[in-house]
């Protein structure tokens, strides 16, 4: 287990059977002096004082039935839903995003990638808005590079709901090319409107397919993920 820091901001990382990015998330967060990251077991019914919740990537319950469909019924998800309803910050990454849509904490659903290929590569994303607890350290239109690593990232929502999401400015990130152009060629999985991540209506829940926890140190190839976690820390500390 990575050495963890003991800062004031408590990040609870939920471990489902089949999560495999939980250690990565704790490690990435431990590189921030302000954080105190710790694990929460999916059967826990207490978030143990969490100020931020991370639903990590992986293959919870073997992706049986649909990705995230079973994890959604884990006991801790009731606590996560109550925490989110009270305005708490929740970030779902990859399988965590899939679980948040299944739990109806975020709109839409994630289907098999267009072309049916598992994809795993660095990906450019365009930042859509910065007046949220997750993106305050970024700039509108900024292009960041964060890797994707998934088989079911093809986000969609019904036409009517999609309009509400776009009108409500709930899109957090879109797949784009190096110059920030949102094109079909730059779309790795077929997601509607190139959506890579979305917010809840209150912008206190974020789901995203790319993995910011994998780009928090130069030695692993990038640091663009840090801005997202730093924004969350700033928000909790009132910065």
């Amino acid at each position, binding site marked *: 287990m990575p050495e963890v820091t003991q800062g004031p901001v408590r990040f609870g990382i939920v471990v489902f059977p089949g999560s495999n990015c939980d250690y990565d998330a704790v490690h990435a967060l431990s590189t921030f002096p302000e954080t105190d990251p710790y694990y929460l077991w999916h059967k826990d019914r207490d978030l143990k004082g969490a100020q931020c919740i991370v639903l990590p990537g992986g293959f919870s319950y073997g992706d049986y*039935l649909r990705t995230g469909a079973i994890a959604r019924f884990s006991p801790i998800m009731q606590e996560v839903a109550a925490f989110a309803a009270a305005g708490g910050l929740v970030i779902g990454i990859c399988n965590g995003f899939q679980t948040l849509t299944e739990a109806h904490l975020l709109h839409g659903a994630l289907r098999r990638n*267009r072309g049916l290929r598992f994809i795993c590569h660095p990906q450019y994303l365009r930042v859509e808005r910065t007046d949220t607890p997750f993106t305050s350290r970024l700039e509108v239109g900024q292009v960041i590079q964060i890797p994707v690593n998934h088989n079911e990232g093809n986000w*969609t929502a019904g036409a009517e709901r999609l309009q509400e999401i776009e009108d409500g400015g709930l899109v957090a990130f879109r797949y784009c090319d190096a110059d920030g152009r949102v094109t079909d060629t730059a779309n790795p999985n077929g997601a509607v409107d190139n959506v890579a991540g979305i917010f809840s209506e209150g912008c206190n829940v974020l789901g995203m397919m790319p993995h910011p926890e994998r780009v928090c140190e130069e030695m692993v190839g990038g640091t663009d993920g840090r801005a997202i976690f730093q924004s969350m820390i700033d928000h909790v500390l009132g910065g």
Partner: protein
Amino acid sequence: MYKVSVYVTPKAGVVDPQGAVIERALPALGHSGAANIRVGRYITLEVQGTDPERVRADVDDMCRRLLANPIIEDYRFELELAAGEDA
């Protein structure tokens, strides 16, 4: 007890990546006339109960909350009285 067959299919209008890939593969086998291929899931289960309406309501709840994702999928199901039981 009832034997239940549940059919889960992608909603009309929702792109089905599996169907699209199969549709592109079939012409390679000489089947050029197949179109609008949609791939779904067939689930069978046995449900305790004697009142078909109650069983129906029960299965509908299972479908809505777990077996299908109503955002992207439609479902329908059929009930059949298990062998050796009276209606």
